């Protein structure tokens, strides 16, 4: 039993139970989400741990991390604001919105705020085209949609996180 398996024993077991016994590999995606809960990215150790659980090589796990956009191989902001600026959203002002958010946070698209709290990314369609501008927030635990947003409403959200973070300290 490796570290990941020990820490999330019940959950790992439940994930494996979803798939046939000889198809453990199917569990790689849910297990990667479990690993990302630790610090928002998948470390080399996580690769090895997951590989051991599902009986594949770490390279095969790493391939999965690299293929999908919601897995990350290095730490970024605790909250990733992922703004859709695909065609339908862009026709409803998503590019201007994205630019506005970034300017106000003092970062480039893809950048992270100095306090390491927020990363703003441009992403592809999130199936909320009628509610643009919109974004999802990927944190360590969840992915949450925020629809019909303005630059102001977004900055307020960031403020809320900052305050909550300060309180914790």
């Amino acid at each position, binding site marked *: 039993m490796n570290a990941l398996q020990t820490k999330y024993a019940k959950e790992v077991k439940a994930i494996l139970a979803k798939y046939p016994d000889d198809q453990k590999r199917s569990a790689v995606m849910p297990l990667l989400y479990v690993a990302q809960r630790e610090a928002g990215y998948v470390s080399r150790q996580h690769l090895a741990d997951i590989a051991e659980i599902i009986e594949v*090589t770490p390279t*095969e796990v*790493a391939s999965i991390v690299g*293929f999908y956009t919601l897995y990350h191989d290095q730490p970024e902001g605790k909250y990733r604001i992922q703004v859709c600026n695909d065609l339908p959203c862009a026709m409803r002002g998503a590019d201007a919105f994205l630019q506005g958010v970034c300017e106000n946070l003092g970062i480039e698209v893809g950048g992270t705020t100095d306090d390491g709290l927020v990363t703003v990314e441009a992403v592809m369609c999130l199936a909320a085209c009628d509610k643009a501008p919109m974004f999802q927030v990927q944190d360590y635990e969840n992915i949450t949609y925020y629809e019909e947003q303005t630059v102001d409403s977004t900055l307020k959200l960031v403020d809320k996180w900052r305050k909550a973070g300060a309180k914790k300290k």
Partner: protein
Amino acid sequence: MTDAVKPNVETTLVNLTIDNVPVSVPKGTLVVDAAKRIGIDIPVFCYHPKLEPVGMCRMCLVDIGLPAVNRETGKVETDKQGRPVINFGRALQTGCTVEVAEGMVVVGYTEKVQKARQDVLEFLLTSHPLDCPICDKGGECPLQNLTMAHGRSDSRFIFDEKIKLAKHVPLGEMIFLDRERCIQCARCTRFQDEIADDPVIGFEARGRSLQIVTYSEPGFDSIWSGNTTDICPVGALTTTDFRFGARPWELQASASLCTHCPVGCNTTLNTRREAKAGGEMVVKRVMPRQNEEVNEIWLCDKGRFAHHYAAKDDGRLTGPLVRRDGKLVAATWEKALALVAEKFEGAGKGLVTLAGGKLTNEDLYNLAGLAKARGGKALLDSRMAGGDLTAQVGLSTGSNLADLGKGDAALVVACDLEEEAPLWWLRVKQAAERGATVIVANPRRTKLERHAAFTLRYEYGHEAALVTALVGSFSPKRADLPAAVQALIRDKDVKDAGQAIAGAKDLIVFYGSEGTGLAESAALARACANLLIGTGHIGRPNNGLVAVWDKANAQGGWDMGLRPSADLAADLGAAKAAYIVAADPAGDSPALAEAVKAAGFVVVQDIRLSATAELADVVLPAAAFTERDGTFTSGERRVQRLHPAVPAYAGLRGDFAVTAQIAARLGVAQEKRLATGVFNQIAASVPAYAGLTSAALSEVREQWPVIGRGDVYYGGTTYDNKQGLGVQLPVSGDSPALTFEQPAEPAKFKGLKAVPVTRLYDRGTTVTPSAVLHPRLPGAFIALSVEDADKMKIEPGQKVQATLNGVTVEVEAHIDNSLAQGVVLAPRSFGLAIEGPCEITVKK
């Protein structure tokens, strides 16, 4: 299913035309392969005849039409001239993924298809660096060749927009990746997954960012890695060994054989005359040479990279040495040989010859002949027995591991097959994939188990008992069998495996040397022979016993009449004169070193100054395998020939010739000029070799897939075989009786029991001169069970003192969680004094 593992049973022929040429091929054949069979090249990059088709690169797009069938009548519609009406699809199809069909029409010469090839090439070249002038693949590059044949003459992609990527990425210590050159065909990753079952390289990211990565420790951790450089259709993967070493068109090619293990892989030695080598010919690389009955088109990395021991470097012996005033000094051949002859004459029947198992049949024949003529002993430097049995119940003529499939079985016992004989592992694995029942019996886990229908565990020392229990599982009960056998017979898996073996159409039994010394090996070989005899799996192709020998030509040694010594130290110590050829007993163990010292007069013949040579009275140099002619007999009893690739040092000859010169001085006439001359004598005097000729060894048949220089785009840079596929020997024809011998109870020790195991990458004298392998050579180590390690509080990787047979060595402790308590693995050729099971003490 790849061609390599496809059962050879489909005989229904399908008729079609390709570029108007009619062709009949077996049902299930892919269009590209059908075309290849009639010499029509449909260009491919991702497709490889040994790999599953994936249809990724889109280079093989062709127009494919099928006869129009009337829905009501079910008959093919015809036009006014009575010709079938052909319906072509709207889009072109990938010839590498479409199977042939009756009446199919494949067209590759139309403008539409030619344009498609041009378009796909243009896409491939948008990101390619076009750095052919400095690329190792230049000259044997499919991308280069196919661009010449099908590409545009101009480039529409803006040069500044080309992606800049890392060009010198070490995937491991042996393989480099040039990310710019990679065309994402996935041949390498698919090879590692499908063929090698080591998926340690893979794709990361996606789209244009797709790139090959490895996350194994160490990087690209596979003994098969070199093969990816052969099948890479561009210069993306190159070996550290050859990289920037030469241009392919400067190289000459000579047929040779791998000398590292009993598989007998066919190789091509690429050589070049080099200024930096003082104008000498140099072996630049070892390439696989196709032999679909032996190594197909593959080589393991040891075979590919561990050739430097034969190089003409400062370590090579170039002339005879004679001990004078306690020191070895240079002498003329005449003086040295005269001295040797004089001493051998004096030794009379006290002459002991000891021959290494990597000598050729010709060397062994002359050596045995000399010993016999003088009434001395002819010993083979090996700790395995059974060469007499394999001559009786071994594989017979016409056997091919590729024929094993559904209904057949393979038993692999006391053997870590991938480590001991990698290509056999690969071919047994393929047999399993074709449906053969593979039974792996070994005291600890080995890689072949992943493909085994039955995995049988037994205690070290019970290998013969296990095999006897398999016999017992389908034979009448015998109360006289030892308790260990009785207990194993009751095991359900043993019983089921026994039934599978008894019911198998064809059965091949491989026995190795995992945990065995000579005595255990003899019992094991006998038990295996019993199993084959008892189940009637002898005397016909694809049935019989295969010894996974500890040396490449051990079978040849047995066939030439040499035998391993039951007590080598005693035999050597008692020798009045010892003639040790291509063996290094003193390097193997201190006890043998003492024996060498005790011997009366010691002559060592080798290519380098070994530990034994240091103790010798006379040292005679010989030509290395790269410099000479001769034959080897593989574990499958296939006699194959190697040819000189580079000239030997002046005055140096093959071992047989040196022996013959000594023999001549003793009045024993032996062929001393041509290896083929000795071979003719072997054919005349060794029954199994009767009637063999060099010409027969040089015969070639058409092999599939078609491989070769002109077809480099299709099969890779592997060489085609123009120099001979060898001849598999017949079995003796005697029907040996089933002779039950009570398997001996394994030796018990008070403390921990050490058992010898074989590792592919060892620290032997044929491996260590190859610097390219150094990063992969482990230091001396032992492996402990989890329980013993816990008890002694030893952590993995910790240095410990291991004492075996009175010799203490500092080793690294490994832990093997499949190992039984009380057992310690001691690898051979790592400086540990182990020849068979023995006691070991481990101290921190």
